[in-house]
């Protein structure tokens, strides 16, 4: 039971990092990324290929994953940022599907649907049975560092510009901000964080396969961020832990309603995820921890 809880906490920490990535792009800047799982996959694959095939050390693999996904984030969005946000949604969704298709088919690089196994786990030999709790601590430390960084980002002038762009890109442009450049940077930062999460996952599970990287995972993270509070980094972390708890607790549905087939149970679970996201949007759109916004002084009240 303890090892189960440790595994779940590790997943939650990785999802929380993903949630922070989405929060930078969507929560802070208002750019929707339906291909978050694609960045997650690229991060995992870059680090896995470099460490397994080329024998790079794990830390360098992870760093390369961050750099690669930051570049991908900047490139995929660069041409599109002038367009309506709907287009970004469509393109990012397509991006993630293409990443998965490439991972399934370029067998020479990714070993296709067999997946890459034997991804090195840091200090596995030295730690032995203590690897899992140690890796959980590592993930929590990474999460803490990322959280601290994005919190600083949010409070910085840079973060203020991102919020201004989210509320009204035209006004931000009138104020002399290069909206395009800020958007590309926000997407690159978010992409890099998602790539880091991917590498974290790969070096934990030691095995990655394309079928992990389905759009459903992106929906999980959207639910996590929305439930926690769009724009609030602490909310994204809280939301990630809630969604893992929610997903895991629905596993025990089988004991409550044993007459359903496994397919029906699986579909019921995914149905509840969709319902959860919809209900949060309808009933509590600002989430459990609403974004802290500076109080505006009302000029009319001052008189």
């Amino acid at each position: 039971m303890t090892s189960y809880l440790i595994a779940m906490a590790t997943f939650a920490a990785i999802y929380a990092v993903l949630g922070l990535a989405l929060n930078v792009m969507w929560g802070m800047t208002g750019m929707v990324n339906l291909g978050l799982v694609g960045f997650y996959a690229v991060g995992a694959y870059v680090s896995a290929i470099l460490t397994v095939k080329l024998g790079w050390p794990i830390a360098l693999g992870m760093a390369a994953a961050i750099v690669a996904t930051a570049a991908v984030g900047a490139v995929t969005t660069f041409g599109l940022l002038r367009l309506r946000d709907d287009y970004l949604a469509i393109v990012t969704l397509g991006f993630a599907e293409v990443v998965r298709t490439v991972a399934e088919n370029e067998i020479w690089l990714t070993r296709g649907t067999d997946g890459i196994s034997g991804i090195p786990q840091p200090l596995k030999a030295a730690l032995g049975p203590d690897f899992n709790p140690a890796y959980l601590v590592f993930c929590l430390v990474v999460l803490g560092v990322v959280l601290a960084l994005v919190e600083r980002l949010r409070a910085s002038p840079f973060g203020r510009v991102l919020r201004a762009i989210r509320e009204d890109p035209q006004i931000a442009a009138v104020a002399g901000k290069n909206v395009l450049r800020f958007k590309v940077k926000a997407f690159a930062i978010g992409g890099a964080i998602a790539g880091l999460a991917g590498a974290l996952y790969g070096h934990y599970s030691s095995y990655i396969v394309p079928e992990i990287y389905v759009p459903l995972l992106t929906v999980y993270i959207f639910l996590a961020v929305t439930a926690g509070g769009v724009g609030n980094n602490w909310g994204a972390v809280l939301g990630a832990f809630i969604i893992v708890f929610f997903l895991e607790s629905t596993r025990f549905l089988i004991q409550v309603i044993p007459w359903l087939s496994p397919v029906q149970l699986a579909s019921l679970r995914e149905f509840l995820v969709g319902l959860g996201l919809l209900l949060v949007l309808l009933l509590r759109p600002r989430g459990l921890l609403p974004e802290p916004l500076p109080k505006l002084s009302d000029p009319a009240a001052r008189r």
Partner: protein
Amino acid sequence: MAGAVLAVPAIGFTTVYAVLRFANFAIAAHMAIGAFAGYVVNAWLGLPAWAAVVGAFLGAGIIGVASDFIALRPLRGQGALTVAIASIALNLMLENAIRFGFGNAPRNYAIPLVRDWTLGPIRIGPQQVENAVIAVTAMTLLFLFLGLTSTGKAMRAVADNPVLADIKGIDPERMARFAVGLGMGLGGIGGMLIGLDTSIDPLLGFRSILSVFAAAVVGGLGSIPGAVVGGLVIGLAEELSLLALPATYKGAVGFLAILLTLSFRPRGLLGGRAT
């Protein structure tokens, strides 16, 4: 011919976008709903293909209007992105509702297989011809509806200029319901046509969603004639890609087409508004 089939759900997607101004991702689930509604009419009630197509249109259209009314309409005030995200949640729910009822295993329509016609070196599948005929008939009926009936004209007016249409006394809510019913119904027909060609399962729509989006974007998001042209272009490009790429990369063709269109002609071939 695959292009004509693709054009039908692309028109559905673009119609909803033209009137409501958001990307409704739930089109994927409605394609599957249409395919399964057609399946029920055809395989369970034993009616012929044309009746199944009507069933696909009505099934997807009615569920489209109902689910939009419950889940998406209350969110319209919160911006296009929120509604688009909600439509993904809705899509997940609807797909899983189908999966709950029908399972994952692929099913086939109760329609006899016919041997391919051969004209010298060319082989033509009669089913594909029939699908193209159904698709063209559906599109013709749609254009007659939009061009000749007052409701059709009102819908075009809302798509062109919602403020002006409102001033002229056109009820935007009523037009929204019409657009969703029509759009999702066409999505349903498209899903069934794809199913007639292969087999049906709950993720049938989702697998072709990139091609559908590509057809709509290449033609110009919000433009119905554009979706027809886009469907033909993407259908043709996907078939031609088979000469150079493995079949599994078909979806990537649509993605590439979207990127090229947005880079060089964001308004699409017959374009509406892009920015």
